[in-house]
């Protein structure tokens, strides 16, 4: 810095900088620093005054002097910011230190706590109730990972890569491994494959399990769809099982969960992993079959899908389809809750509003 370039100015920049740094260093609290900052950089500071006087200089000098003042201001601002961060950290440490509490020595008997009952989430209570019905029918409850390989989520379920049926399941792929080899599961069906593989390895067929869990599909959220949702599926593998057993199981479950006045019906449908496949409807829970707006006057509500395990799925899992047969079924837990409690908009489930949560 060329000394004297501010010849007509009232300040000596070098001295000012040294003085300023000292003042900044002397501030021991953020409050004190705020004051120092106002003094050094504020409207009435020496620096501001010098800046105002630049106008009196000839254009050439004005430019270099101006640059010099701006540089000085920038340097001081940086130092102040750094100092402020340091002081803040110190002040925070002091507050935190004063706050110190050794949790290993809390006297439990001495705690005071509000007395109020909490509430399970509607999805949890619905899932628990469904599990209880299935457990009473003799099912075990199985779970699996939410991120799955393409093999478990699709290929082993008779949905090879690029198969048009994949269009039914718009998937989220993960940046893991080779492109599009790991997906967020689009259904809980991969757990069926894992169960079958485990049972084959352990020689422990038959299988009677239900698989509740979280699933993901790339659907836009609306009142009746969520891209992240919950599903429960069931699979039974044994000797001599038929479509009649499937239809009977669905009917038993329907009456047990929804009530004896609610029945089921099956209609042909297509799922790559079952053959024959069916959609299943239940008696409209609003009008009990008389026909209303909710069921478009049909008296039935669509609940889920089901069918006899496709022999290609058995092949993938290493089960001989000539020796064993099986059936599977599945439906949405959230949708079940929506139907039973007349939840107009499924997005309420994700809002965490206690006025909603505390009703269940």
């Amino acid at each position, binding site marked *: 810095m060329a000394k004297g370039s501010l010849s007509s100015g009232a300040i000596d920049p070098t001295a000012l900088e040294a003085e300023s740094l000292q003042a900044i260093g002397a501030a021991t609290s953020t409050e004190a620093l705020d004051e120092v900052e106002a003094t050094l950089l504020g409207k009435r500071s020496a620096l501001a005054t010098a800046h105002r006087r630049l106008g009196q200089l000839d254009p050439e000098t004005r430019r270099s002097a101006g640059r010099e003042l701006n540089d000085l201001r920038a340097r001081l601002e940086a130092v102040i910011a750094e100092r402020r961060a340091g002081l803040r950290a110190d002040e925070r440490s002091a507050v935190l230190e004063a706050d110190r509490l050794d949790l290993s020595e809390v006297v439990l008997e001495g705690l005071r706590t509000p007395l109020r009952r909490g509430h399970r989430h509607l999805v949890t209570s619905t899932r628990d109730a469904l599990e209880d019905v299935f457990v009473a029918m003799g099912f*075990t409850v199985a779970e699996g990972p939410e991120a799955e*390989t393409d093999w478990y989520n699709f290929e082993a379920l008779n949905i090879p890569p690029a198969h048009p049926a994949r269009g039914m399941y718009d998937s*989220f792929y993960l940046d893991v491994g080779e492109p*599009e080899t790991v997906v967020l599961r689009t259904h809980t069906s991969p757990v069926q494959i894992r169960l079958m593989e485990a049972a084959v390895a352990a020689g422990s067929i038959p299988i009677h399990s239900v698989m509740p869990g979280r699933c993901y599909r790339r659907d836009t959220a609306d009142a009746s769809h969520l891209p992240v949702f919950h599903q429960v599926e069931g699979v039974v593998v044994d000797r001599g099982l038929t479509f009649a057993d499937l239809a009977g199981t669905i009917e038993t479950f329907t009456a047990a969960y929804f009530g004896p006045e609610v029945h089921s019906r099956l209609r042909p449908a297509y799922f790559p992993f079952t*053959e024959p496949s069916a959609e299943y409807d239940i008696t409209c829970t609003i009008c009990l079959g008389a026909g209303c707006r909710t069921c478009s006057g049909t008296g039935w509500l669509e609940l889920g899908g089901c069918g006899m395990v*496709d*022999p290609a799925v058995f092949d993938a899992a*290493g089960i001989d389809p000539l020796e064993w047969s099986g059936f599977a079924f599945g439906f949405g837990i959230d949708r079940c809750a929506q139907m039973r409690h007349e939840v107009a908009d499924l997005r309420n489930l994700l809002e965490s509003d206690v006025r909603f949560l505390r009703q269940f």
Partner: protein
Amino acid sequence: MRAPLSWLADFVPIDRDVDELVVALDDLGLIVEGVERVGGGLERIVVSKVLEVGPIAGADRIRRVVVDAGGEPLEIVCGAFNFGVDDLVPLAGVGTVLPNGMEIGRRTMRGVTSNGMLCSGRELGLSDDGEGLLVLTGTEGAIPGAPLAGALGIEPDIVFDLAVEGNRPDAWCIAGVARDLAARFGLPFTLPTPQVTATGPSVGSLASAVVESPELCPRLTVRVLECVVVGPSPKWLARRLVLAGMRPINNVVDASNYVMLELGQPTHPYDLDRLGAPGLLVRRARHGEVVRTLDGVDRVLGVPGRGLGETGEDCVICDAAGEPVGVGGIFGGTSSEISASTTRVLLEAAYFDSMVIARTSKRLALRTEASARFERGTDPFGIDRATERFCQLLMASAPTTVVAAGTLDVRGDLGGPNVIALDTGRVNGLLGTALGRDEMARLLEPLGFACTPRGDDSLEVVVPSNRPDVRPGSHGVADLAEEVARVFGYSRIERRQPTWTDPGGLSAYQRARRQVRQVLVGLGSDEVWTPSLVDAADDAAVGVHGEPVRITNPMAADQASLRQTQMAGLLRALAWNRDRRQGEVRLFEVGVVFGPPDPAHTAARAGSGGAAEAALPAERELLSAVFAAKLDDATSAVGALGALRDELRLADLRLRPPADGSTPPGLHPTRSLEIRAGLDGPVVGTVGEVDPAVVTEFGAAEGRVGWLELDLGVVLDPGVVGRRSEVVRPVSRYPSSDVDLAFSVADTVPVDLLVDVLEGAGGQLLESVSLFDVYRGPGVEPGRRSVAFRLRFCAPDRTLTDTEVGALRAGCVAAAERELGATLR
């Protein structure tokens, strides 16, 4: 798909009412999503001719019109302005009820009497156009007084809107739906085989057909039609297209669309004279080749996309010179489109490999009526009927048309017929039915399956070529079982409740997880479900800076990562409630968080998939809880942990600062600890308070927010965290003696170690140790604190004497002094 009843009736003499048809279609798996009654209510609408148009004094939005509707001229008041004298327009006379339910009365407006209403297309339910009148001028058969429906070729009709499943390509056409209905009702199904007279020159003299890649396109046929006059389609044909949901374009394109809707076979007409060289050549796309499709977009072909099974194989249709004119099976090109000046039509009808079409269509994000059909699988032998039908339709709409003789037909490997040995016992075994051999044949044959008895319990079934969904061999048996069940009726299959001897139940983990929830609920906590798909910045805001698992194709930028923590979600939930003046709450979530793939979680691609393995992201199921009710702080969380420990009978959990002196992410540096399984065991969770700076950043609470997190997979594993003994400790019938001891002990000595020492020294006779006071301050040296315990001694078989209690007390004090440097105060 939309299926007009009148069109279905071309193939099957349907004699059932609509309700019965809806039930039957549903039961056949052709789900009825809607039933539309169209063209009804037009019985009293007639064609009228405008004789005079004049203003009405004092009104500028209505005019006086006089029309001839076949009788005396009628005076009408009309608010439309899109017509003039001599135009033909529809008239609804007085007393008519329009399709929309509106009844026309005689009205007088500003002194003019209106004897009816002139109608727009929308008012008649014939179009969406409600702007002006439906002008009929130029319409053949439209003469004043004639019924409108007749002039327009409109019959009242019923249109079924059907959802056809992906495994039923055969049913995705009018004839296919009719075939199913005929089978269900036992009615005859007739599929005419049109025969046109080909009087033109040999097709081979006009065009060529070459297939260089028969594995992509196993069959290509080419026909040529000359002397074609392009114009509008006949009314009945255009009307059917409209009812089926397609817009009429011209008689050539319409005929092609009509055939696709009717028979399921897409065809593509080219202007033969606009092809660079007459004829077609089908080949694999070259790497990076660009084709401009009919929608005007340049498509890059032959480049593999992302993902499994992507080959980058695309099939292009070229002119005879090898210049691309379309993407095979998906989209035609612009260069050889049919135009008003077209006189020679080359008709392409082909059969493509369904997977090739599926891959190309997915990669180009280009799904057309044709590609959707090809990817499901078309009938390679249905092509001839379709092209014959096209010629027939075009000859009817453009009678000058001359069809060239013969068809250019290039065939690759189309495979032999799929013949399945159907063991009736196996079908009954799958369905739970008891259908005889002949009964099964009677169910299958109307669908086109040719059945020949082979012994008493078996049929030899020849699968028709329009059923590519039926697989060969034993898998095909399952497919045929579905066909049997469909025609038989799912509802007629009896129901049986299977039974088994294995007991059902929840796993120990699942039971314990329910207990966890119940404990939290009992403490006044409400369970929430917060998003799993998050913005990685949210994780960072609570101090979790790990590399998240990212979503390749997120729906939104703030949902592009899998959450690594539930803290951000819970804090947002607190903020949500606080913003609604219900902030003093306790919330918890039981959910999965994700981390980078862990070699321990490698999943084999077992089975026929074979070799590769893929490492899956690490998943942990966590209980995470925030305590933000009145009075809540870190001690609330410690209390909750105590309740959980008690309910789950967890033994030996220790609260310790992180070994490296750090603070667990997002937590208060001086009011948080890790939870460990035993003195040397793994970390199983965290407890304490959320860092006040983080609380402020999320706007989560006014005051302190207690925090508890447990990694359930670890905590609930008895191999990691031991369980308290299940063996009951008998309750002594003898009185107990209490001894209160206050020690001064260094801050560095955790209280639980002192408890360990006291319990060790007290032995079997020490019934309980409970901490009742902790004190720091005057009277206690800095760096130490006073901790006070109540020790309760009791023997199962006697009352302890003062001497015995004194000795036990001394032993405990000595052990504490000796082992932990504690001093009795």
